[in-house]
């Protein structure tokens, strides 16, 4: 199962929807791993979108599972990247060449959607006009509020900051600017006294 229903939380926590076809002059689709399934579902609703579509896909651990099926959707452009970071120059170039009427569809992990949404916002698209659909891992991109370092793909709470080594509590408090959740030191008053890490949403 790649769909996960996040429990209701504080207002700051992003809420994801289901990708729907929208009228537009061009369609930019950015997905990672199981996010491919959201694009395949979108194609069952409106396959014609893909003729004006540009798919940027980062398979992560899914390898070749989805790439051929995505290619078969017949997008005008199809790019498979090794990592999100490696795809950023391409995403920026696509956005800088784009015009009004571009629709943006993001699918997959929260880290990918948050960062790609940030790129689209900086290019002038209001965040509320960017569609998102969560699929796959519930891993989070976390910012340590103490050293400001980012730790990618956090799956346990608490976790150890990959930059400064503090034990961090995983909050739902989210920053759209950083595309990251906030991690706060959990054992500041009594260093070393911390609960056992548990997997997120278990």
């Amino acid at each position, binding site marked *: 199962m790649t769909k996960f229903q996040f429990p209701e939380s504080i207002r700051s926590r992003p809420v994801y929807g289901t990708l729907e076809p929208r*009228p537009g002059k061009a369609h930019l689709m950015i997905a990672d791993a199981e996010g491919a399934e959201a694009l395949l579902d979108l194609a069952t609703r409106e396959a014609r979108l893909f003729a004006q579509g540009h798919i940027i896909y980062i398979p992560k651990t899914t390898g070749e599972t989805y790439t051929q099926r995505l290619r078969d959707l017949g997008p005008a452009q199809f790019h498979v990247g090794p990592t999100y970071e490696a795809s950023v120059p391409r995403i920026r170039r696509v956005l800088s060449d*784009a015009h009004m009427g571009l629709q943006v569809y993001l699918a997959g992990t929260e880290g990918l959607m948050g960062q790609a949404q940030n790129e689209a916002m900086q290019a*002038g*698209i209001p965040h509320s006009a960017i569609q998102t659909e969560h699929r796959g891992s519930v891993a989070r991109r976390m910012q340590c509020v103490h050293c400001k370092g980012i730790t990618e793909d956090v799956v346990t709470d608490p976790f150890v900051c990959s930059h400064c080594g503090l034990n961090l509590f995983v909050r739902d408090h989210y920053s759209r600017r950083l595309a990251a959740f906030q991690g706060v030191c959990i054992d500041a008053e009594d260093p070393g006294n911390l609960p056992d890490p548990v997997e997120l949403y278990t």
Partner: protein
Amino acid sequence: MSAAPQKARAGAEKIDVIVSAVVPLNELVTRFEFTRADDKAFPPFSAGAHTVVEMRDGDRLRLNPYSLMSDPADSSQYAISVRRDDAGRGGSLFMHRSVKVGDRMKISYPVNLFPLDLRGRKHVFLAGGIGITPFMAMIAHLERMGGAWELHYACRNEALGTYVDQLTSRYPNKVHVYFDDRNQAIALEDLLDGQPLGTHVYVCGPKGMIDWVHATAAAHGWPDENVHSEEFLAPQPGKPFEVRLCRSDITIQVGESESLLEAMERCGVDAPFLCRGGACGQCETDVIEADGTFVHRDHWLDDEDHTSGKKIMPCVSRFVGKSLVLDR
């Protein structure tokens, strides 16, 4: 409901002004310039704001909203341009016929329901007729900031092209004028096509034009957030009706040529308002009981609210039927 601070009286605070100039621009449009009676600086306003002008027309008090069209950076004066509507309810006729240089008037603090979205990379203005007024202030603001803009301005004919000469001579490369009598029309689809990402479009003009721009932009994949519009509705006359205001504990009669809001004010009820044109939402009123049909004319309530029969905007909407009880 708005989170506006509670005030002693409804509407925005008032400023005492003196009419400093009355400048006829063409057969239908006249500019009125105001200075403050106390010689202080006017409060700053953001481009797109309007003021509600109080008119003492005999024993009748008229309150009409007009867009501020002077330069927002000029705190020594406010200016509005008023199109005379001979078939209207008389506010614009009063301005044209009775307001003279040196008159003392009251106008409200500016209220902005049509602001520029300054995150925009580029601003495209679409004006129809007297809808040019808010754009005069927006253009002055963006010129000072070095913002990117272009104006597409549709007028009936050259003689009624308010500010056309001024605009085309100052900004020959940014202003595009279309005259109906020469069968010129804004090529909206071509215009929307190819605008850079982050462009915002603003439309002010007749309802048909506003609906056309919203629908065309949506069909071209423009987010709603990037399409802005303003249309002040004038209350339309209708059959007189009776309303019970249960909080004030009175029953009032709404005359043929006055709005429900005006009738409440005439009877001494201090009802909230800001725009008086069905746009701002300030006067939204709950319906307690109704036996009849609502004539909703506002842009504020959604279709669901309109059909529910639980809410009414007294500034522009009316009622036909046996009895109406409002929570006011």
